[in-house]
């Protein structure tokens, strides 16, 4: 008999709320740990989710993080109501950043976010409309989880 072990959930993100920035990714990490997923896979997922969450907090008014975990993969969608990305190719370039100084002073905004999400995941799709918002969808495969 087939058992459906899949699980999904959603977290809401608030722009400019630096006190709580990271709590969604932290909660997602806890879900993955509870499921006993391999540590290196958890780390890649947490890093990608946190980079995306920081982007929403830095650049957008609000957003949400949705996840779905099956026996074979973790998929995460981060959607925001923000300014959008005019040129995704440029935003994917390491070192390219439009972050203001106060963000850089916190150790972020050095133009490594999207490239690092790409590096940490098995697939990444970015859709963005300037003035409306951005949606990131990434997938991480769960392989050899024994």
């Amino acid at each position, binding site marked *: 008999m087939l058992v459906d072990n899949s699980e999904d959930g959603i977290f809401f993100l608030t722009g400019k709320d630096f006190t709580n920035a990271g709590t969604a990714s932290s909660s997602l990490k806890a879900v993955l740990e509870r499921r006993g997923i391999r540590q290196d896979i958890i780390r890649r997922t947490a890093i990608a989710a946190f980079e995306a969450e920081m982007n929403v907090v830095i650049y957008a008014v609000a957003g949400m993080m949705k996840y779905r975990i099956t026996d074979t993969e973790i998929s995460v969608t981060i959607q925001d109501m923000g300014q959008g990305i005019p040129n*995704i190719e440029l935003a994917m370039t390491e070192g390219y950043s439009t972050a203001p100084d106060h963000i850089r002073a916190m*150790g*972020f905004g050095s133009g*490594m976010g999207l490239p*690092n999400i790409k590096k940490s995941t098995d697939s*990444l799709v970015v859709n963005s409309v300037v003035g409306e918002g951005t949606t990131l969808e990434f997938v991480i495969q769960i392989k050899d989880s024994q």
Partner: protein
Amino acid sequence: MNLVEIKDILEATVITSQASLRHSVASVYCADLMSDVLSFSIAKGLLITGLTNAQVIRTAEMAAIDMIVFIQGKRPALQTISLAEEKNIPLLVTDLSMFDTCGRLYEKGLRSQSAAVRRPSIVACNEGSI
């Protein structure tokens, strides 16, 4: 190298409450850019930094960093210390500079094992798969 050894080498103060001898690290990553920590550090290491905001703890949590040393006597706010305690990440403060902190630990045998710089080939478009 365990927490007590690191504390002694750096003449540091442990500022979290549950820090124990069981905490030990095999490698070091040193940065003030959290983006770099997220991109290049490896799991189970020590982070040396001059930044003290809450995002440092969040970064350590996501990147599976096991211990943090703040340099030049910089102390994070109580809220940040509480977050580290909640995440079971011991925090140390040393009066040494970044250079001397790294130098002393290097002298005692600790090394960096940062992930190799990898440049993914990037093909992007505004609507669709990257």
